[in-house]
């Protein structure tokens, strides 16, 4: 196994330089390739911007509208049909759906419904072109969208900023598609539809592949369909070959969603997978039952009064029919499709953490319910420690080891940013909500005897959440100043890191020393440690300002962030006094009387600040 592990690391190390080299060589030999690659990059940047924009609306109106309009399969299907008909681009609807999904605005099943709907909606394009010769050209909007988008991004209001990111994102998407098309112009000429008419099954397969290739090249099934209809109207290709091209275009259009999913999380990739599965299945069914479809098209044409030789409208009808059949085939298996995709594409990041101990059975007896709450809070605390440790750029298992903390902090003095909002959503929020709800239910059924303890537990879980929120506030400057050129400020922020890591380690040790029940007295030393490190009272901040080691702006940041660090530790200590101490702990009453009060703490601090012998 070992050589492979080494090989994997080696491969990862050389992958990026290799990609750069290959791309660089490609740019050198082909200007077209450069334009295509730039198009893909702009497109992906648009996706990121779009996601950023939609994130501004999470928890707000957009979420409610989307939830209401996509909570049932028929609703999401109609949503897909309507939006695609309006925008005349299934690709755009699918990439926007991917960004909705990535931002957590909708569920995977709703996303799949929208994609199915988009496949039906896109067929209206063929009708418009074949029937009226109309073409909605959305790429013309790219430039104004970018301009308006960027202006809005500079606004202070969060909502306007969000709208700005969405607009700029759409603008970049269109611009990216435009460049991809431009770049492919050279290749497009090579696809001469009129040159090779082919009858029979061979023609069907070859033209399907041609349709896929043409759509991948042009980044739009709509554009391919326009081309097919024009060629068909000019009798450059046979009707059968045109049908095969339409099938191919339907499969090829998934490339945009696949590209879009590249910058997305696992949910987005699953949706792109669903899109591919749907369009492949529909395509295969259309190829296998092409004769039956032709009969159905003829019969429906007669009903609708379409002339026998009006092949362009017949093509539009065929496009609608086979997508409709696809939707009818796939709708009943949507649930299984979701399960299959979830099994096939496992998220690298752990998804939302579920409660482990809060079950109905424990609710039967108040004692077991109380224990379940305590166990779940332990789970929440472990997650909170992991989150705090990751913000400090330390591994959580360091807290359980004897490794030299100061050495660890000094060896990696620069803190990198973590997505704490996502971590909070995944590791904290769901557990906290579940604990709060469970406590309320226990409170309603258990006797008054448990009232005080339940209240204490509720406050302790709030303390855990507050600690995580405080570390979130701290993160911004922790990242900024540990990466700063000013060594003094970097050292101060690393001191905060070390201080908090020590608190986490001491609390982990206290808890593991006597898991059955900890003495509340043991937390006093932790409390004293954070008081001692108070940069304002120990005169360190004044010294730094006097010596011009840090600027006034840095000093105020340091003061605020020291307060946040203090709050993190204080919240954890308050929590520890409840959660770490077993409710049946015999000496609890006596020990509580010996806990140091503020006056005693101050006396100890004063003593500490006198020059010591060591």
């Amino acid at each position: 196994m070992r050589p492979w592990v080494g090989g994997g690391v080696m491969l990862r190390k050389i992958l990026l330089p290799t990609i750069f080299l290959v791309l660089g060589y490609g740019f050198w030999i082909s200007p077209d390739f450069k334009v295509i690659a730039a198009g893909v990059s702009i497109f992906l940047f648009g996706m990121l911007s779009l996601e950023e924009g939609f994130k501004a609306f999470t928890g707000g109106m957009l979420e409610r509208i989307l939830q209401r309009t996509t909570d049932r399969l028929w609703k999401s299907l109609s949503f897909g049909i309507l939006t695609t008909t309006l925008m005349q681009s299934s690709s755009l609807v699918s990439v926007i759906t991917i960004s909705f999904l990535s931002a957590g605005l909708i569920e995977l099943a709703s996303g799949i419904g929208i994609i199915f709907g988009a496949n039906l909606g896109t067929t209206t394009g063929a009708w418009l072109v074949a029937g009226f010769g109309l073409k909605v050209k959305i790429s013309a909007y790219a430039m104004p969208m970018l301009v308006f988008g960027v202006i809005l991004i500079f606004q202070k209001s969060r909502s306007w900023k969000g709208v700005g990111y969405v607009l700029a994102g759409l603008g970049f998407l269109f611009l990216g598609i435009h460049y991809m098309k431009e770049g492919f112009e050279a290749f497009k000429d090579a696809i001469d539809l009129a040159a090779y008419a082919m009858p029979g099954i061979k023609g069907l397969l070859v033209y399907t592949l041609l349709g896929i290739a043409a759509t991948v090249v042009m980044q739009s099934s709509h554009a391919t369909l326009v081309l097919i209809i024009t060629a068909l109207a000019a009798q450059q290709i046979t009707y059968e070959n045109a049908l095969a091209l339409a099938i191919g275009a339907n499969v090829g259009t998934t490339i945009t969603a696949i590209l879009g999913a590249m910058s997305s999380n696992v949910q987005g990739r699953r949706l792109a997978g669903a899109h591919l599965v749907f369009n492949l299945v529909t395509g295969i069914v259309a190829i296998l039952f092409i004769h039956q479809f032709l009969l159905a098209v003829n019969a429906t044409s007669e009903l609708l009064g379409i002339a026998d030789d009006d092949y362009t409208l017949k093509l539009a009808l065929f496009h609608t029919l086979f997508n409709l059949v696809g939707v009818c085939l796939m709708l009943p298996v949507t649930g299984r499709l979701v399960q299959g995709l979830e099994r096939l594409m496992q998220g690298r990041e752990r998804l939302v953490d579920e409660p482990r101990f809060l079950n109905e059975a424990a609710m039967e007896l108040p004692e077991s319910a109380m224990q379940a709450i305590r166990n779940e809070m332990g789970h929440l605390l472990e997650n909170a420690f992991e989150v705090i440790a990751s913000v400090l750029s330390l591994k959580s298992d360091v807290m359980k080891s004897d490794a030299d903390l100061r050495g660890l902090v000094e060896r990696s003095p620069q803190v990198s940013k973590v997505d704490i909002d996502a971590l909070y959503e995944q590791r904290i929020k769901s557990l906290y909500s579940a604990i709060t709800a469970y406590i309320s239910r226990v409170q309603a059924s258990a006797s008054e005897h448990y009232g005080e303890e339940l209240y204490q537990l509720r406050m302790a879980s709030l303390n855990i959440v507050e600690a995580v929120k405080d570390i979130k506030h701290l993160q911004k400057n922790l990242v900024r100043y540990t990466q700063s050129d000013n060594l003094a400020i970097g050292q101060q922020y690393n001191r905060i890191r070390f201080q908090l890591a020590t608190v986490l380690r001491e609390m982990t040790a206290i808890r593991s020393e006597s898991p059955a029940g900890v003495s509340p007295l043991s937390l006093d030393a932790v409390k004293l440690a954070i008081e001692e490190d108070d940069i304002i009272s120990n005169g360190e901040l004044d010294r730094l300002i006097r010596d011009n080691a840090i600027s006034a702006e840095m000093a105020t940041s340091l003061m605020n962030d020291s307060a946040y660090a203090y709050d993190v530790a204080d919240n954890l200590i308050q929590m520890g006094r409840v959660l770490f101490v077993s409710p049946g702990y015999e000496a609890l009453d006596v020990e509580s009387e010996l806990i140091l009060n503020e006056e005693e703490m101050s006396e100890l601090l004063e003593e500490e600040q006198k020059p010591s012998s060591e």
Partner: protein
Amino acid sequence: MTTEKLIEKFHRLLNLEKRKQKEKRDKIRSLLKKLKQQQKALEAKLENEKNTDERKQIKRRLKVLQVQRKKGIKLCKSIKC
């Protein structure tokens, strides 16, 4: 006379308040003993510890323990244990 004494003893036994106080005295005594043991263990640990941060931490714990013990002794005296 013996009957009176017996009644008094019985009365004392029933006196819940006093019984509680005795319980508390016992608890404090055993707690003080526990704190003393912890102090000795920490002092021994301090002698062998070389790491500056660890030494600082142990010293801090010792200081806190001393104040807690003082408080405990004061409490003990106040309830005449």
